[in-house]
């Protein structure tokens, strides 16, 4: 992973990061034009240097490497707010929207980048191992940045190694870190990764063609996706997914997600990377 980060960042920033943190624990780097650079080590944010201000050139340089100097070629991805880079690194972007005929046509003058670095962490928690041994439909819940995706990866790998056929819907390349057809993060022996295909399309086509036991999806969002998941559950496929939410009660009050909760067995609440808060068995209450 370090080589991908080294290639992506300007030399001066990378050297400073190496001197200030353990790159293997780096989870996020935030570049905002004309503002200080922040990075997160295991989810904790720090300023790189008080006097270092991110320049427009720093942002252009990262974008040039991430897009192989072909920003235009990433337009559809940019419209979704991110660029996928090698090794499963996802770069969230924000800038100025260009509206054409009432629709967002492209984003120009990009001023902020949120570089998210994927991790595989061995989670030593018996409750998770129990959950894997008695797997049923599971949602992983937390606020952003607390390690939902990390736990999802861990569970995918272990369920997959247990012999479950897991279909990994990796729209942004973040779960598998796949680049050039090579999985950079081990997701186990029986996982099948669907890379770069919009999830809503993948649910319908891949369930029929790949016959999964479990579908894994990161950051489910909105009514359409929930409907797709309910269809999969109806077909007998189990679901393992993450949702941005700090509180399951809020989820229950939401009519869209409440429909999904009728079919979910476990809710995993986490309070930090690799740190499980509690597991709620909805059948037991």
């Amino acid at each position, binding site marked *: 992973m370090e080589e991908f980060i080294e290639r992506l960042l300007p030399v001066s920033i990378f050297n400073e990061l190496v001197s200030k943190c353990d790159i293997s624990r780096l989870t996020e780097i935030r570049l905002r034009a004309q503002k200080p650079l922040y990075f997160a080590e295991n989810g904790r944010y720090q300023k790189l240097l008080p006097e270092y201000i991110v320049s427009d050139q720093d942002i252009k340089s990262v974008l040039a490497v991430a897009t*192989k100097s072909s920003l235009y070629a990433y337009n559809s991805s940019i419209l979704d707010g991110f660029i996928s880079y090698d090794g499963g690194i996802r770069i969230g972007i924000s800038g100025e929207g260009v509206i*054409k005929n009432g629709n967002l046509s492209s984003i120009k003058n990009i001023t902020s980048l949120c570089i998210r670095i994927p991790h595989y962490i061995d989670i030593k928690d018996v409750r998770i191992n129990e959950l894997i041994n008695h797997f049923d439909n599971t949602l992983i819940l937390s606020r952003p940045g607390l390690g939902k995706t990390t736990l999802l990866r861990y569970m995918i790998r272990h369920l997959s190694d247990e012999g479950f056929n897991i279909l990994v819907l990796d729209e942004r390349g973040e779960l598998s870190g796949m680049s050039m057809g090579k999985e950079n993060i081990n997701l186990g022996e029986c996982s099948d990764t669907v890379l770069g295909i919009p999830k809503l399309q993948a649910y319908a086509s891949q369930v029929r063609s790949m016959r999964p036991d479990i579908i894994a999806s990161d950051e489910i969002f909105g009514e359409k996706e929930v409907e797709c998941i309910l269809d999969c559950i109806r077909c007998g496929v189990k679901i393992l997914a993450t949702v941005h939410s700090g509180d399951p009660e809020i989820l229950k009050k939401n009519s869209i997600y409440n429909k999904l909760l009728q079919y979910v067995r476990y809710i995993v609440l986490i309070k930090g990377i690799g740190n499980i808060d509690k597991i709620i068995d909805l059948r037991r209450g």
Partner: protein
Amino acid sequence: MLDLILGGMLCFISTYIGITGKLYYDKRYRFLKDFVAFLQDLKDNMVYSKDNLISIADKFVQQNKGDICKALVLYKEILAKGENTEKNIKDIFDYKYLKKGERAFVNEFFLTLGTLDYDNQIAKVNLTMVQAEKLRDKAEKDSKTTGAVLSKLGLLAGIAIMLIMA
């Protein structure tokens, strides 16, 4: 005898100068013609296949010849290393047969290429193509008129010198 040898040498030099003058105009035209062809290729790829610049340049180089291809080979290399700096671009695209303003025009295009969002990049390619076509047409005219005149003049002057010396 010595006059004849000297006359022959001066005739050769004069013809050489004329041909070199023509070559300058021909090379300038060829480069701008190929630049326009590259822009057309670039636009098609950007709009339809959305390939990245390295693969667009790669395909162009494989299907074409000429000095612009030599420059594009080097351009691909700096793109792959993420070293498309102003200096490197200038080193590659400062083609000596172009006029000063033409060089600046080509350099500026390659410097911004790949850094703009989709809409602006397409608009930039379109605008550059219109301007490049004008430059190409002017270069073609110069090659057919001034270039041809120079080569003929060189040869005629050489013959004249030979005759005078003889």
